[in-house]
């Protein structure tokens, strides 16, 4: 774990943040959390389409699992209601458990797939479940010109 962080940190120090790409929510099935599986054109040269689509599909399946309305959610809801929701002070909700799984999955994907390609996924919960943010980095050695955007100059000053 520490070794990976060291690698990502090194990437951070030596890399330049070029841009951020946002994968939007897919509302076609209502307000359930789902991200569009449209491949952003900015990432054409950076990552294979299938890898990103696979990540988005897995994330969507996690959210479906979290928001499923079925036997377990009824039980959880009724038990919580009967105890005036005090039980949530000691128990973790199902959604929170799935969010932890999602966080681990994103971290694993970042370490294995995205960081080696100079990309970084941000957990959607950090952005209010509105977007799946993909940060695009450029290796400092390869890029000659300094982009004028403020966030890049901030990164370069680190």
């Amino acid at each position, binding site marked *: 774990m520490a070794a990976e*962080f060291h690698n*990502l*940190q090194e990437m*951070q120090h030596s890399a330049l*943040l070029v841009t*951020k790409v*946002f994968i939007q*929510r897919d*509302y*076609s*099935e*209502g*307000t359930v959390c789902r991200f569009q599986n449209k491949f952003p054109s900015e990432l054409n040269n950076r990552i294979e389409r299938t890898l990103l689509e696979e990540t988005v599909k897995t994330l969507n399946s996690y959210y479906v699992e*979290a*928001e*499923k*309305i079925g036997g377990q*959610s*009824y039980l*959880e*809801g*009724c038990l*919580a*209601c009967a105890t*005036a*929701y*005090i039980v*949530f002070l000691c128990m973790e*909700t*199902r*959604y*929170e458990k799935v*969010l932890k799984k999602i966080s681990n999955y994103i*971290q694993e994907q*970042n370490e294995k797939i995205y960081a080696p390609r100079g990309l*970084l996924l*941000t*957990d959607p*919960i*950090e*952005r*209010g*479940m*509105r*977007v799946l*943010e993909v*940060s695009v980095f450029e290796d400092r050695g390869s890029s000659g010109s300094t982009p004028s955007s*403020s*966030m890049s*100059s*901030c*990164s370069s*000053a*680190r």
Partner: protein
Amino acid sequence: MSAVMITRKVRKWEKLPGKNTFCCDGRVMMARQKGVFYLTLFLIVGTCSLFFAFECPYLAVHLSPAIPVFAVILFLFVIAFLLRTSFSDPGVLPRALPEEANFIEMEIEAANGNVPAGQRPPPRIRNVQINNQIVKLKYCYTCKIFRPPRASHCSICDNCVDRFDHHCPWVGNCVGKRNYRYFYLFTLTLSLLTIYIFAFNIVHVVMRSVDQGFLNTLKETPGTYPFKLTVLEVLVCFFTLWSVVGLTGFHTYLISLNQTTNEDIKGSWSGKNRIQNPYSHKNIIKNCCEVLCGPTYPRYLHSLSYSTIKFYVSVLVRSPSPKESSPSPKEEEHPPAPKLPPLASPETDAETSIAKTH
């Protein structure tokens, strides 16, 4: 030039825009105006205290000891649901960070094309298809986002809230996706409690009149039962009854149709030319189950997680005070001094998503 790395943890809710107040390390979140909430608490606790002090001893002895026990249980539930509604995050959507806001602006400009000078640009609306109905998503100029379906901006709290129902001053908070069921259960249990106290007050007066005669009951002598307090309780319960029971009925109706108060007031799904509610399952039981027994949604604000800010300070220039290097609330990157590097806002620092401490 040597550099020293200093890590400072900043709680995200300290930097949060919007007119909310936070307590208990960010766990409690309320609107700024809390006066009416204190009034609600006072009325409930006050009336119940009078009931327990003056009616319950008589009723426990002459009717059944189960009466005060049940009243206590109802009272505890009411207070629990009230506090849960008032203190929880209703589902506030965090505002867009600069990159996201710019990205959306660029998309809007690309979609609008060239607007001739002097002409107003078209309204910022995004059409999405939900269950084969076209729903318009409006752009929020304060939060710089296209609001998700059913979200609305609360002007009192200055936040966009997911599945916004209404802002309730009695509860001192917005009612939205995360606390709607607590709000509904609060009104329901409060209705039951009000009816309960009202009914047993009447029973108490009737029983005393039968025992002592009605005129004796009305007379107030020291050491005997104070009738004026019962009258006060009955009055409070009577007025509360009409409003709270009515409200509970209204929300039961809304839940069965899977609508929010906001949508009902605006008439979003009513009328001939309007579209039907795309979120309703067309089945009352399914709608109720979704609203009341659905999953407990997480906070978007993550007030309990910390952002780690790392900044490098050039030792040769000078040692700046921590205040100089602390981030400004609007997350602008102003270098504190020409030679000092600009401070990254925590959200744009990709390391924070890796180095997030729980």
